[in-house]
């Protein structure tokens, strides 16, 4: 029984974190890590609504995150409000809304902890199937358009002149990002899911100078952190999400030492 839970959690974590690693490359290269924070936190309102209404679907959290990511993306594109202040606004609104809703539903503090820091016992087979589907679609999308995103990141005008539909790809990117983040929340939690938008590429950049190496290292290190984190959380009886992130930070420290030794 416990093995089922651990293995299921590992598979879900591995699938989602590999996809997040590829996404993370562009998030870090375009310096948009704060956007991930905003999107993850905006799911809070939706999850709180689930508790109030007694649902367990992804519909509400997804709706909140996707709307938030589209607003963030739109503000950023328009450029008349800095992206950061837009993210701040959405972040604040959704957290306040979530706390407000949770406080009028039952089991306020227990639910709150699970949402913020994840709960390995809450992931089920439905989450597993969904993760497989999202992994296949998401990874195909990111691999197919990798060069397109690389060019957009290098210089957006060149991408436009090459005939790439930069705006459409840009919004699709945010859509995929919000879906993966929402799926990861059950396991890792809202507060820590952002680690997977930053750490994979930071580790990758410490190990490799080449984008292929960076993405590959990112993917491998994130699967390692999931495996190490879940094992350690079982052995030490600690929350999985936090343990996974601690494992990842440890990997990052080793990668930094590796970089320092090499240069």
């Amino acid at each position, binding site marked *: 029984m416990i093995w089922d839970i651990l293995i299921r959690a590992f598979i879900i974590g591995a699938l989602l974190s590999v996809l997040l690693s590829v996404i993370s490359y562009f998030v870090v290269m375009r310096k948009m890590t704060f956007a991930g924070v905003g999107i993850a936190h905006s799911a809070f309102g939706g999850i709180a609504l689930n508790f109030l209404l007694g649902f367990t679907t992804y519909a509400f959290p997804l709706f909140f995150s996707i709307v938030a990511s589209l607003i963030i993306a739109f503000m950023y594109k328009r450029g008349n409000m800095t992206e950061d202040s837009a993210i701040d606004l959405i972040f604040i609104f959704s957290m306040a809304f979530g706390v407000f809703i949770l406080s009028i539903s039952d089991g306020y503090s227990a639910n709150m902890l699970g949402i913020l820091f994840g709960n390995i016992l809450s992931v089920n087979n439905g989450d597993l199937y969904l993760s497989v589907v999202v992994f296949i679609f998401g990874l195909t999308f990111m691999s197919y358009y990798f060069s397109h995103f*690389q060019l957009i990141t*290098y210089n957006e005008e060149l991408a436009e002149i090459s005939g790439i539909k930069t705006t459409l790809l840009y919004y699709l990117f945010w859509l995929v990002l919000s879906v993966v983040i929402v799926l990861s929340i059950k396991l890792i939690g809202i507060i820590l899911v952002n680690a997977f938008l930053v750490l994979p590429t930071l580790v990758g950049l410490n190990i490799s100078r080449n984008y292929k190496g960076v993405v590959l290292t990112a993917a491998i290190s994130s699967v390692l952190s999931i495996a190490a984190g879940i094992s350690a959380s079982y052995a030490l009886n600690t929350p999985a999400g936090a343990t996974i992130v601690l494992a990842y930070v440890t990997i990052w420290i080793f990668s930094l030492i590796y970089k320092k030794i090499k240069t």
Partner: protein
Amino acid sequence: MIKFKNINVKFNEKSILKDINVSIKTGEFLGILGPNGAGKTTFIKVLLGLIEPTSGVVLIKGKKPKEFLMQNKGFVGYLPQHAIVNWNLPIRVIDAVLIDNIKPFGLFRKYKKKELEKVHYWLEKFGIENKMYNYIRELSGGQQQRVSLSRCMINNPKLLILDEPNTAIDAVYNVKLYDILKEINKEKKVTIVMVSHDIGAVTAYVDEVMCLNVKIHCHNFANNIDYSTVIKNLYGEDMNIVVHGDECKNCTVNRLKQ
């Protein structure tokens, strides 16, 4: 080849470009001069269809830029201002030179021999063939510009648009750079539109000069232009005197040289 008809661009009610009427002929080497904030980059972006003008039309061979460039991939080589390119990407020079030759599933891409040869040819032309496998963020600004120039040329464009190509390039190489551009223009018959601060170099190398500061203040053959007037016009106080060539029909004509 290119026609600007009554182009006006405004950002927040402020005129950035005003009543621009210009033709650029096939095979021409046009230099655009003007102070910072004069609208030179905006002019180029309108030409490339990256900015929609507030009024007026730009036509490349009779078509709107976006439509034309969509149907004629590789027709234009564009060098954006150095500062707006992300030089932090973990890619090598060869990746950067081929970066707009987009392929699906590019993460796993292997370059063909022919691509490698083309890259080598242009890197050698711009004198950085020994940097082919170096990482772009580890190059100097001048070397990065030469990577950009190689990228512009890799598909043998018919039109080369350069936004301050001499940024970060040292004085010695600058001369070399203009020689190469001149050669590309004359031997490969590539039309070149080049924005530059470098009045001296522009005088010596281009065929025609256009002085831009919101309006077109002069447009003439390079050797017909009275540069003291140009400088006074663009950088000084008197903004009314205009020297121009035949293409500039809407300018107030005030021929200083006949």
